[in-house]
C-alpha cells in the first residue's frame, strides 16, 4: 500500500507481478472466500479416485466416453441457466422447456417428415419464444422468476404430454440427430480440433498479454501464461488420447473410437458463451445488472432488456440440451427433460461455483459442475446402487456446494472482499 511513488509512475504502484506473487494473490483470494472453481475441481478429483478404487472399470476408455454423453444435456442446460443465475433469478422451467423443444423436434420429423435442420431450427425457435415469454413476464409484468418459471414447469410438462399425444414415446430415426450423442468423430479430426483449440487459446492469451505490455500495463508473468496454456494442452491431450482408444467390446463387429460428437458441440458453446460474457459489452452488462441493478440502470443500461435476454438464452440453450437428450435416448417421451434434469442442471451450475445470489459465475462452471454430477451418476450406477441412493447422494453434494457458496460469501463479507 505504502510503496514510495515516483512522480512519473501511474496509479498502480504495485510491484511487477512474479510467479510467486501470483500464487500468493491466488491463495489470499481463496483464503478470502473467493474459491472459484476450486471446490468443483477438488470434488471431481476426490470422486474420481473414490469410484476408481471401488470400481476399476470407472477408469476405462468406454466409461470415460459414456460420462460425456451422459452429462451432455444437463451441462448444456446448465450453461444457459448460468445466465439467469447471474442476475440472481432462477428458471425452474428449463428442464421441461427442453422437453417441449425435443418433442417438437421429434414430432416434426416423425409426423411431418421434416428434414433434421428444419426440426432443429424449429426446436431452437421454440426455446427462444419460451424465453421471451418468461422474460417478459419477469421483467415487464414483474412476477418473480421463481413463480413464473414454476408455472412454466407445470405447463411445459403438460405441453410435452400434449405434443406426444399422450403416447408412450416418439422415436427418432434421423441419422444426423442420432449421431449427436451416439457417434464419434474420426480420431485424426479429434487431434486436429484439439490442436486448433490449444493454438487458439495460446494466441488469445499471448496476444492480449503483448497488447497490455505494449501499453505499459501490468501483465501476468510469462511463466503463468505459459503454464495455463500447458495445463489446457495436457488436459485436452489426455482426454482426446483416451477417447481415441478402441472402446468396442468386439472390434470385429464394430469399431468404436474417437471423441463423441457432442464434445466439440459443448466446447463450441462454451467458447461462444464465454466470449460473449467476458469480452462484449453485453456480457459486462449482465454482470452489472446482477451485481447492482440500480447502478446499472443509472449507467444507462437497459435493465429490462438484459433480464429478458437471459431467459431467452436459457430457454434457447435448453432447446439444444433437449435435442441432445432426444438424440441420446433415441426418442422423446413424457419424461424428456423431466425428473431430475432441471435439478441436476441447477446443481451443476452451483457446484461449479456460480452463485445463486447473482453477479458471480462463469460458463465454465456448468462444465465442471456437470462433470461432477455425471461422475456421481455414472460411478454410483457402476457400483450398482439404486436410484434412491443416487438421489440422496446427489442431494447431499448439491447441499454441500450451496453450503460452500454461502459460507464463502460470509467469509468474503468478513474479509471485505465482497
Amino acid at each position, binding site marked *: 500500500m505504502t510503496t514510495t511513488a515516483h512522480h512519473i509512475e*501511474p496509479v498502480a504502484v504495485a510491484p511487477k507481478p512474479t510467479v510467486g506473487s501470483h500464487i500468493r494473490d491466488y491463495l489470499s483470494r481463496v483464503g478470502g472466500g473467493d474459491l472459484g472453481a476450486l471446490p468443483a475441481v477438488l470434488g471431481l478429483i476426490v470422486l474420481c479416485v473414490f469410484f476408481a478404487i471401488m470400481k476399476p472399470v470407472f477408469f476405462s476408455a468406454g466409461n470415460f466416453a459414456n460420462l460425456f454423453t451422459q452429462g451432455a444435456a444437463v451441462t448444456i442446460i446448465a450453461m444457459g441457466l448460468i445466465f439467469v443465475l447471474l442476475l440472481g433469478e432462477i428458471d425452474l422451467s428449463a428442464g421441461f422447456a427442453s422437453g417441449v423443444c425435443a418433442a417438437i423436434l421429434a414430432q416434426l420429423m416423425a409426423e411431418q417428415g421434416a428434414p433434421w435442420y428444419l426440426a432443429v431450427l424449429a426446436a431452437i425457435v421454440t426455446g427462444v419464444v419460451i424465453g421471451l415469454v418468461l422474460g417478459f413476464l419477469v421483467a415487464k409484468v414483474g412476477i418473480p422468476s421463481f413463480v413464473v418459471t414454476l408455472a412454466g414447469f407445470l405447463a411445459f410438462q403438460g405441453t410435452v404430454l400434449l405434443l406426444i399425444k399422450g403416447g408412450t414415446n416418439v422415436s427418432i430415426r434421423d441419422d444426423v440427430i442420432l449421431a449427436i450423442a451416439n457417434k464419434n468423430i474420426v480420431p485424426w479430426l479429434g487431434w486436429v480440433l484439439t490442436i486448433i483449440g490449444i493454438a487458439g487459446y495460446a494466441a488469445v492469451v499471448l496476444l492480449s498479454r503483448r497488447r497490455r505490455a505494449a501499453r505499459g500495463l501490468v501483465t501476468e508473468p510469462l511463466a503463468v501464461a505459459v503454464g495455463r496454456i500447458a495445463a489446457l494442452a495436457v488436459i485436452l491431450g489426455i482426454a482426446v488420447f483416451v477417447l481415441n482408444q478402441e472402446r468396442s467390446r468386439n472390434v470385429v463387429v464394430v469399431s468404436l473410437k474417437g471423441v463423441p460428437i457432442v464434445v466439440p458441440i459443448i466446447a463450441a458453446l462454451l467458447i461462444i458463451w464465454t466470449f460473449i460474457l467476458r469480452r*462484449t459489452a453485453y456480457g*459486462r452488462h449482465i454482470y452489472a445488472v446482477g451485481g447492482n441493478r*440500480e447502478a446499472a440502470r443509472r*449507467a444507462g443500461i437497459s435493465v429490462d432488456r438484459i433480464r429478458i435476454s437471459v431467459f431467452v438464452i436459457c430457454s434457447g440453450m435448453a432447446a439444444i440440451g433437449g435435442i441432445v437428450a432426444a438424440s441420446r435416448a433415441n426418442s422423446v417421451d413424457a419424461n424428456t427433460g423431466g425428473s431430475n434434469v432441471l435439478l441436476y442442471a441447477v446443481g451443476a451450475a452451483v457446484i461449479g461455483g456460480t452463485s445463486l445470489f447473482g453477479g*458471480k459465475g462463469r460458463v465454465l462452471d456448468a462444465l465442471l459442475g456437470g462433470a461432477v454430477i455425471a461422475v456421481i451418476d455414472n460411478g454410483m450406477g457402476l457400483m450398482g446402487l439404486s436410484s434412491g441412493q443416487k438421489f440422496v447422494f446427489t442431494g447431499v453434494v448439491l447441499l454441500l456446494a450451496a453450503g460452500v457458496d454461502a459460507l464463502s460469501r460470509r467469509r468474503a463479507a468478513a474479509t471485505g472482499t465482497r
Partner: protein
Amino acid sequence: MSVTPLLEARGIDKRFGPVQVLKDVDLTVTPGEVTALVGDNGAGKSTLVKCISGIYPIDAGEFLFDGQPVTIHGPRDAAGLGIEVVYQDLALCDNLDIVQNMFLGRERRSGLVLDEPTMEQMAAETLAGLSVRTVKSLRQHVSSLSGGQRQTVAIAKAVLWNSKVVILDEPTAALGVAQTAQVLELVRRLADRGLAVVLISHNMNDVFAVSDRIAALYLGQMVAQVKTTDVTHAQVVELITAGRSGDLGLAAEKIDNGVEYADTLTTPGAEQ
C-alpha cells in the same frame, strides 16, 4: 471573482403536489471553485441537485450553461452538458473491478470486443491525474475497496468523461477521519483542475476546509451565496438553522413566514 459562471440556476421553483420544495432558487457555479451547498435536512439540497441533473423537471426558472440558456430534460441531457453527479450510494457494482465500474454503460470497444487495454489505460491516467495512489490494482473488485477508495472511484468515474461540473452528494458522510481528508483533498484537486465542483455537505469542517463559496438553502429558499472567507462558522450555522445571520440571509419580514412555518412544524414535538 471575475470568472463567468459555468452553470447558473435562476428562479428555480419546484413543488411536489401541495409542497413547495424549492422557491425562487438562484445558484451560481464557477469553474475552478468548490461551491458548498449547505442546508438542514429537508431544505431542498437534494431536490435542487436532482433538478440540475435532470431527474426532476422544474416548474419554473431557467438554467444557463456557459451563459446560454439550456433545457435539461433528463440525466442524459445533463451528462451531455458535462454535468456529473456522484450520489451518496455511489452506484458501484461490487462484483466488477475498478476499470469496469468506471466505464460501465460507456465501454470502449474495438469492433464487437471490449477494448480492455484502452479502458485500463484511460482509467489509470484519470486516477493518476487526480493523484490517487491508494489503490493496489485497477483490476481489483470494488468490493475489496475501503469507503474512501470507493468514493474516489465514483469521483474518478464522474471525471473520466471530460465533465465540467461535478456534483458530490455528501461524499464524506460515511468516512473516517483519514479517508475524509483524502476525499476532501481530491475535491480540492478537481477544482484546481478547472472543474466546477458542487459539494453538498452537513459537515462545517469539511465546508470550510475546501469550499470557495457557500450557498445556504433554508426551507427551499436560497438565503445566501457568499465567499467562504467572508463568513464564520457560526454565521453559516445560523443561515442553515434560522435562514438569516446579521445582514445575510432573508429579510426580516420574509423570515416571519419561515419562523411561523418552522413553529408549526416544531410545536407538536415540543409539547411532548
